[in-house]
């Protein structure tokens, strides 16, 4: 693998890992606060799965760059500032109400499922192997969140309204999940990843019909965001402040 291609792959793995980590952290904020006990358990598990997936991606990054996979993930998670993160703004937004949490998770789960199915065919073997591992786990997430989207969308006037408000707000953010990274053509050409626009189209086809079935109206078009994977919302710094606090106070703490 030449230097340029490796660098592109590093950026891609970072984006995959950071999305999972930050969304996993947002989900963990429900632990002890979810509206019912069963969902408290569910979201703690989903958080654990997403953070587990982040760990897998960071592990591949460590292997690719010759770092120690026992140490490197923690270094990336606890010692980077917001501007070095490559997550999408969708996952940075505060957890909001239950409708917001559920719809964001659904939109992300669907995107992730489609992406993993494509990555099964990646010519970069570690990527294909990791995708095969995660895909099965994601089926449980999507099954859960899609059932809730329908339940809330077709529930009471209030639950429908809250879902619709969230969809109107999140639509452009979800769309931006598929903005290609700078070096995407190199990775596509090498057969490592699919084109973002292919993923976006598949996601759109599946999401639009399901959201309509769930009693929701698809917003007209998308508006450009002020943020991308290199320029973040203020919410990310705030999240990192909380997530990195203990590591910064006790840099060599052992769990």
């Amino acid at each position: 693998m030449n230097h340029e291609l490796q660098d592109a792959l590093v950026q891609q793995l970072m984006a995959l890992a950071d999305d999972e980590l930050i969304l996993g952290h947002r989900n963990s904020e429900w632990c002890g606060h979810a509206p019912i006990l069963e969902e408290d358990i569910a979201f703690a598990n989903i958080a654990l799965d997403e953070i587990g997936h982040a760990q897998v991606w960071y592990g591949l990054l460590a292997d690719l760059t010759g770092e120690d996979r026992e140490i490197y993930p923690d270094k990336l998670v606890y010692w980077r500032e917001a501007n070095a993160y490559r997550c999408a703004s969708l996952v940075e937004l505060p957890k909001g109400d239950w409708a917001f949490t559920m719809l964001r998770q659904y939109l992300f789960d669907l995107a992730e499922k489609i992406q993993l199915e494509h990555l099964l065919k990646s010519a970069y073997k570690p990527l294909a192997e990791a995708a095969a591992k995660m895909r099965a786990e994601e089926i449980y997430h999507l099954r859960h969140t899609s059932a809730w989207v329908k339940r809330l969308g077709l529930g009471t006037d209030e639950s429908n309204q809250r879902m619709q408000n969230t969809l109107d707000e999140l639509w452009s953010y979800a769309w931006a999940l598929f903005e290609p990274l700078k070096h995407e053509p190199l990775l596509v050409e090498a057969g490592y990843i699919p084109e973002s626009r292919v993923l976006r189209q598949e996601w759109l086809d599946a999401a639009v019909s399901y959201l309509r079935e769930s009693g929701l109206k698809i917003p007209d078009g998308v508006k450009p965001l002020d943020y991308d994977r290199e320029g973040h919302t203020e919410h990310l710094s705030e999240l990192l402040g909380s997530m990195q606090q203990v590591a910064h106070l006790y840099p060599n703490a052992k769990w």
Partner: protein
Amino acid sequence: MVTVDAIWKVLEAVKDPELPVVSLVEMGIIRQVDVLPDGKVIVTITPTFSGCPALHTMKADIVTHLQACGIEAVQIETTFSPPWTSDWITEAAQEKLRAFGVAPAPHHGGQFEITLLDVVACPYCGLENTTIRNSFGPTPCRMIFYCNACQQPFEQFKPL
């Protein structure tokens, strides 16, 4: 020098930290054992779920058991390929899980999604009058059910 078979024998005693009635070997978590020419032992494991929080404990337990038998040089490798499947849990282990109050995952031959529609029998009374309460549970690999017949909540090992 210690043989691969002897190592497997030792590993049979290492229990799953979350389900201590079954061993990591029976669960299909320990995949491979190699003994290098210099005597170093390499144990390859694969997690059930990638975010499994028990993985560190499993690794430590493997090392402790081998060291107790005088095997000092141990290295644990983790692999994701092929991905772990609940089909690897041995039949004997499935029975032990049932006796422990955990309904085993049905055998699915690679299509686990289909089994999510299956009726799950209560591990306590054996009747099939059960309802799923949560696709998630106390660990990433278990879900929560309720038996309407004997009114007993129970867990099922997730098919994967």
